[in-house]
């Protein structure tokens, strides 16, 4: 079953800016889907239309077969939204925010209370349940927005840059949490600036640029398209004779660091054997840039130059 269908979606703002230009997208039920794009590409506008925060100019949006125009309430009831900016009442207590949200979705207090309590515990907010939300730290506010989006048990969770500005530890714990709820059956759509996040979490991906979808495929196929990768090697001893690497495409960063570009057909074992034969021993190795980042830049850059 398709969790989200978008057909010929267009949005032109009052000032004439065309934010979305004939967007077509399908997200299957149970998917963990990434929507990527540079700033101002149209990600948030797309999410805004799906969640009724932005009025579309043309096109059709269906959420689990419920049309957003014809069956608005049913379509909305399937969605949970974690927006980019904090948008809860700063004076309300944390638990009241969850219970109020549950009430908007028609959950009785009897149904909402245990659900809210469980989410507060899962997301480490239980001790703060009676605290006004404005007194929470940035990371806690992010977690509160996730708890609020999940309180009515949505079938489709949409996260707009959920880990922006949170520390690495919290980001990792949020990834684990999101993987768990996806495993339990919730379809997730994620926009993020952290491409590593999309690569780690998502199975399918769409890249949007200047209001158009420039790529829509599964993550594996996309990464397979990368024909070259650059590795950064830290050497055990300084490289004194650069002639040793004359036949290998490389760039010497400093005496103990070199960057080597490898074709996908080349094996790392082969490279290490050659280096070892020439008395060059590698202490550690990493990718120069995230693999998805390389592809992302390739896909987005051509249109940037137009």
């Amino acid at each position: 079953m398709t969790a989200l269908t978008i057909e010929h979606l267009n949005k032109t703002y009052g000032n004439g800016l065309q934010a979305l230009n004939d967007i077509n997208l399908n997200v299957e039920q149970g998917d963990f889907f990434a929507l990527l794009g540079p700033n101002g590409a149209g990600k948030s506008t797309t999410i805004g239309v799906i969640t009724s925060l932005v009025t579309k100019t043309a096109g059709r949006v269906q959420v689990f077969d419920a049309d957003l125009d014809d069956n608005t309430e049913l379509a909305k009831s399937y969605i949970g939204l974690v927006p980019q900016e904090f948008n809860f009442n700063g004076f309300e207590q944390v638990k009241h925010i969850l219970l109020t949200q549950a009430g908007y979705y028609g959950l009785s207090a009897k149904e909402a209370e245990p659900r809210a309590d469980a989410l507060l515990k899962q997301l480490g907010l239980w001790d703060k349940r009676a605290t006004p939300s404005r007194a929470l730290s940035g990371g806690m506010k992010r977690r509160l927005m996730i708890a609020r989006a999940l309180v009515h048990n949505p079938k489709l969770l949409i996260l707009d840059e959920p880990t922006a500005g949170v520390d690495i530890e919290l980001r990792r714990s949020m990834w684990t949490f999101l993987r768990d709820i996806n495993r339990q059956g919730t379809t997730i759509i994620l926009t993020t600036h952290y491409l590593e996040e999309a690569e780690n979490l998502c199975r399918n991906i769409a890249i949007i640029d200047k209001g158009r979808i420039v790529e829509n495929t599964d993550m594996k196929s996309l990464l397979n398209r990368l024909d070259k990768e650059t590795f950064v090697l830290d050497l055990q001893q300084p490289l004194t004779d650069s002639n040793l690497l004359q036949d290998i495409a490389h760039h010497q960063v400093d005496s103990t660091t070199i960057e080597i570009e490898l074709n996908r057909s080349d094996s790392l074992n082969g490279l290490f054997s050659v280096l070892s034969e020439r008395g060059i021993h590698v202490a550690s190795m990493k990718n120069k840039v995230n693999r998805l980042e390389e592809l992302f830049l390739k896909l987005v850059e051509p249109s940037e130059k137009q």
Partner: protein
Amino acid sequence: MMSASRHPQHWIAFKTIVTREIRRFLRIWAQTLLPPAITMTLYFIIFGNLIGTRIGDMEGFTYMQYIAPGVIMMAIINNAYANVASSFFSAKFQSHIEELIVAPVPNYLILAGYVAGGTTRGLLIGVIVSMVALFFTDLTIQHYWITFTIVLLSAVLFALGGFINAVYARSFDEISIIPTFILTPLTYLGGVFYSINLLPEFWQNVSLLNPVLYMVNAFRYGLLGISDVSVYWAFAIIVLFIATLTWYALHLLHKGTGLRN
């Protein structure tokens, strides 16, 4: 899973909005409930007691008795208006109105929830100010049904006005412009402190264009049994205004004015 009918969910959503509104104005009671009690006490002391004793009777009642219904009505409509205007605008300002826009809550329920919240504050203020009035004068209700319905309808009407103001407002200044420049003059010129029979004929006719005059007089009729205008006309005008403002507020919500891009 969704049931075939959404009525139970709608009722829960409506109760949630109203409960949240009531919790809000009770949480900040020092800003919402206390000031009207103090202001109205001052009205009773200054206009009713100090000046009123020199004015003498008005339409067969002491001046204190005469102004009490108008002062109570003034507090009710001001607070019903202010509650919705400030609450809905704050929700826009802090963006938590998005919680409601994203949720499966139809527009009429959003409007009904906010108006019910404002009406509740108006009625609660009405009770508080009436209790204050009882320290200064005797109040007996002559027509229960008229008294209760006119208070309820007036609070609903001004809550609707506050909602429309908040939809258009882009800053906190803009939610005080209407009360300052329109609501307050209409209230003071709406027969709260005098009978329009005291005015020259021209100004009597001008006063008849003021909707607040009908609310104040119909309420005075409910309490004292006297009115400068027909009570039937008063009900008809208020109901007409409520219908018009309800239609307009729903139209604004449907268009997403001030709410959606």
